[in-house]
């Protein structure tokens, strides 16, 4: 196989960890690895990437200061057509997931997204990804092509020090025309609420299993008797039962409390990513196959509407 391209990702002046994770993954596949970087004033990032790649190819231009799909796609399309990598790895992030499908279709490359493990069989990638919220895996193969594009899930592979000293090549911007269909404006940070759940010692986290808004007071009472704060999964926040600053997961907060009591949460990776660093995890869920039990120290497989009221009483008794 020709070399592997890894698209480096940066945001708000920081090189994102997923770049190093993908370079680590790529380095184990065999072929030569080239880190590709688009940005503005990114010499420092190029230097860092060089210790994880055999080559760093980068374009420094103000049009790439912030991610804009049309601009990134135009540049990468030109680079890929010229350099003909066998495989292009892109983080399946808010940026990468936006970019991969349209870039692949423009180039006519087979692609897939949100891959959790990747191998090469000869010159062709074989990818594994999750289906049905992580309840089952699927193996994906591809039609024959010169180049394949794969979106790899963040944190699927830990980044390792690779000690490389790749050649750094700064190249001319392949795009000379102005991109007018899309324009970056600004980043808006998520609102900060009255409780910062990233600092909470104990969290009671509520999921979809709670079913209705009217069941929230029961969870508030559980949190109160434990002296914990309330947090929740995306579903609960989308439904408006908890404010957005209480959301745990990829698009919410990353928390590391002493106790994370997950009630009615199935444990899709989007949620688990935000809580797996908790010291003690307890899960209450009706479904014995819920992925959350793989991340929990203790589990109760039962109806939360039976367990939670009983638990509130027991804790009250213990506290006297």
């Amino acid at each position: 196989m020709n070399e592997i391209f890894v698209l480096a990702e940066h945001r708000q002046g920081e090189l994102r960890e997923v770049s190093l994770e993908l370079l680590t993954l790529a380095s184990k596949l065999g072929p030569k690895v080239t880190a590709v970087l688009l940005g503005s004033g990114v010499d420092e990032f190029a230097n860092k990437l060089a210790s994880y790649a055999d080559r760093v190819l980068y374009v420094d231009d103000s049009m790439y200061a912030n991610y804009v799909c049309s601009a990134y796609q135009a540049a990468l399309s030109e680079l890929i057509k010229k350099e003909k990598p066998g495989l292009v790895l892109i983080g399946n992030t808010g940026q990468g997931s936006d970019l991969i499908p349209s870039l692949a279709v423009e180039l006519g490359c087979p692609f897939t997204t949100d891959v959790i493990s990747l191998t090469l069989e000869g010159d062709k990638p074989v990818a594994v990804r999750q289906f049905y919220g992580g309840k089952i895996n699927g193996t994906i193969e591809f039609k024959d092509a010169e180049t394949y594009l794969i979106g790899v899930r963040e944190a699927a592979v830990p980044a390792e020090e690779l000690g490389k000293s790749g050649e750094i090549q700064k190249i001319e911007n392949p795009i000379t025309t102005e991109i007018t269909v899309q324009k970056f404006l600004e980043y808006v940070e998520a609102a900060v609420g009255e409780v910062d759940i990233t600092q909470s010692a104990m969290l009671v986290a509520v999921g979809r299993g709670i079913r209705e808004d009217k069941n929230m007071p029961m969870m508030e009472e559980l949190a109160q008797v434990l002296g914990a704060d309330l947090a929740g999964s995306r579903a609960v926040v989308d439904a408006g039962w908890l404010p957005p600053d209480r959301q745990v997961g990829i698009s919410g907060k990353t928390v590391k409390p002493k106790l994370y009591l997950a009630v009615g949460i199935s444990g899709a990776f989007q949620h688990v990513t935000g809580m797996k660093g908790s010291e003690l995890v307890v899960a209450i869920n009706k479904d014995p196959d819920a992925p959350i039990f793989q991340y929990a120290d203790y589990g109760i497989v039962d109806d939360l509407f039976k367990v939670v009221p009983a638990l509130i009483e027991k804790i009250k008794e213990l506290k006297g």
Partner: protein
Amino acid sequence: MNIVVCVKQVPDTSDPDTEVHIDSTGRGVDQSKFSFVINEADNYGVEEAILLKEKHGGEVVIVSIGPEAANQVIRMALAKGGDRAIRLEDEAFAFSDVYATAKILQSAIKDIEFDVVMTGCMASDDGYAATGQTLAQLLGVPHAAYVKSVEVIDEKTLKVGRELEGGLLEMSEIKMPCVLTIQTGINEPRYASFKGIREASKKEIKIMDLAATGLSSDEVGENGSLSVLKGYSMPEVGELAEILEGDASETSTKLATILKEKGLV
């Protein structure tokens, strides 16, 4: 403002009672016990389209690939305010990957004069989160994925907020026509009114088969796909939690005791 919304009927896997079992072919799942619902993110897409129509006028067209049973999901979108619908169904569509799926959708959408096409940002069953972006490229228009806010700036421009990691919003302008993939939580999806449901039964659902799409059998299904799902497998299960056994009284006593021992109560 004319808006096309792509919706998908999916198994209701949010229900904790829904178990997913691989079927005997190894490439499908046993659907016999599933109940089906509109894909959650698509439901937000329908709402966002109707909100824009209510403010700016125009037409909302619902497009879906699926069997006759998917009419239920389509009718509900029509009852909420969709004007008409197209349902694409053909045996040849089976095993289409994201690319082939987007080609099928494109065949129905290309003749509509749209300003915006909306899809959910991700389907709860296969989770590719890629159909909208693929469709945009096939339609030759720009796109924005994971959209959590939409504002009309002028007749050619939208201001959109894309949700990134940590809840950070990336605000940008995008020219219409365009494709937006809608993130959950962008709005509060309404319930259909009885009047709406009554009216929806009279609205048109146009059925398109392979011949009607103008595509050949080589362009759809597995033949027309760039990737192939070879088979499903059960994930390797990590070390499981210690499960506390007994009825609710017993398990809650055990848990309270553990929390006490660990100094958490």
